[in-house]
């Protein structure tokens, strides 16, 4: 288990469709993950909900626009707004993605994969360090789902991510669904990906659904976690122990209790893995 951040248990995303339950106080989760950009606004209901949720449970800020891999300069105005939001809600941690999403001042609003080269590695490490200096905290960097790979990559994605974490001294948000999606799309072993992650750096896990288009999987976050991803999560718990885990459900979002049930399933699986290990240990003694 990573000691880099506190262990929060099993949380869910903060989504507008569930705001009424948050406002009336009937939404109960271990913690909530908020998409940073959705709350970089001046006021209104979203910020009130965020503060209400924060009063009840820990909040984590998860961004999609840091564009850590872009060759555009880091967006200082965005960093200032993020820093203000961090000061306002005091999140347990802040995360974003190992990707690029902007070029020439234009944004794709997507998480585009990087070439895994030494040059890209040095570039990303430098930017992660600057972001951490600016925010005065260690951030978590998440692996993305991808649908293409670059010919000039010289290392696998898992080596690249592990090296970013070590050299920038940041933590890893390991999206187990994204590992599964990318592994299928590129033909690599999802298990090898997990096994290559440095234990001490994995500070959060994401679980989510995806859609199968035959020739490829698409990271749509629009359904329950599939069996293969649950099996990967089991492997993750076996390898990393207790890690704060979040269920992402961003599209065709069901009732809050359905999403909470997925988080409960993850909690039960973690307990089964960890409780099973200790039972075996007790019998051996």
């Amino acid at each position, binding site marked *: 288990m990573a000691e880099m951040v506190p262990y929060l248990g099993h949380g869910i995303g903060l989504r507008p469709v569930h705001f009424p339950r948050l406002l009336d106080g009937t939404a109960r989760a271990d913690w909530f993950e908020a998409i940073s950009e959705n709350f970089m606004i001046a006021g*209104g209901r979203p910020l009130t909900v965020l503060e209400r949720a924060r009063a009840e449970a820990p909040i984590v800020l998860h961004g999609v626009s840091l564009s850590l891999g872009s060759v555009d300069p880091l967006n200082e105005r965005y960093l200032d707004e993020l820093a203000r939001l961090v000061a306002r809600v005091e999140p347990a941690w802040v995360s974003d993605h190992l990707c690029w999403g902007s070029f020439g001042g234009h944004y794709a609003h997507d998480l585009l994969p990087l070439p895994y080269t030494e040059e890209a590695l040095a570039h990303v490490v430098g930017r992660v360090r600057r972001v951490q200096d600016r925010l005065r905290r260690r951030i978590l960097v998440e692996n993305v789902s991808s649908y*293409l790979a670059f010919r000039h990559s010289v290392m696998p994605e898992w080596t690249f991510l592990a090296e970013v974490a070590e050299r920038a001294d940041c933590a890893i948000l390991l999206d187990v669904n994204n590992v599964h999606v990318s592994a299928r799309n590129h033909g690599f072993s999802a298990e090898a990906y997990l096994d290559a992650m440095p234990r001490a750096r994995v500070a959060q896990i994401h679980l989510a659904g995806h859609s199968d288009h035959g020739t490829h999987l698409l990271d749509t976050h629009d359904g329950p976690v599939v069996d293969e991803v649950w099996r990967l999560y089991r492997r993750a718990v076996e390898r990393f122990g207790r890690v704060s885990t979040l269920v992402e459900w961003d599209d065709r979002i069901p009732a809050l209790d359905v999403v909470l049930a997925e988080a409960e399933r993850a909690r039960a699986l973690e307990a089964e893995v960890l409780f099973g290990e200790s039972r075996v240990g007790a019998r051996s003694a």
Partner: protein
Amino acid sequence: MVVDTPPLAAEERLQIYAGMYLWRIVDALRENFPRVAAIVGHDAWAALMRAYLAGHPSEHPSIRHVGRALPAFIAAEPPPGAPPYLADLARLEWTRLDVFDAADAPALTLADLRRTAPEDWPTLRFAPVPAFARLTLTFPVQRVWAAAEQGDAAPLEPSRTALRVWRRDFLVYHAPMDDHEERALACMLAGEPFAAVCEVFSDLDAESAARAAGTLLASWIEDGILGRASPDR
């Protein structure tokens, strides 16, 4: 540059991203402009988004801002067959979004006003809360607001229309203003004291003017559009 990994060639892999980019914007702007999108229709909306994005790529990290120039784009290049009021409808939908996200601020209450000495009333200067906007439109699109949600493009005659848009208890409202209210609001926004605001009713007899000014002020307070008031010292 991109690897061919069966079963998908490099070109097909790039196309996945290209397709997702368009549909992400299509969906996001449909959420921001639901009535405009409903009237335009599914296929024409995607075509409109393609045309819009060609000249207005996103320049802000948050997708929330992608549609800012869409009302002006629709005014300049209306989709084929669009009702003439479509740009005005887009302006109203976008303004409502801006008001929804505006900064919070305490609103003036009747109790606040009662604490003000009567001799200070004429010199009181009011200011609106941040979650407030006014629009001047060519068409009275508020009349087709409900029908537009179903994609019903009811005909509308052009008629200059002033709307105020405000937020109360997290909900956004809009309403047309008559000539008196529009001029009174303009006075207030220009920082004029209350006495000057009341002058807009000078076409009425004294008693009616006082009643009208009081009723208007009460409605502004009830709707929560006024921030704190300050007297001249």
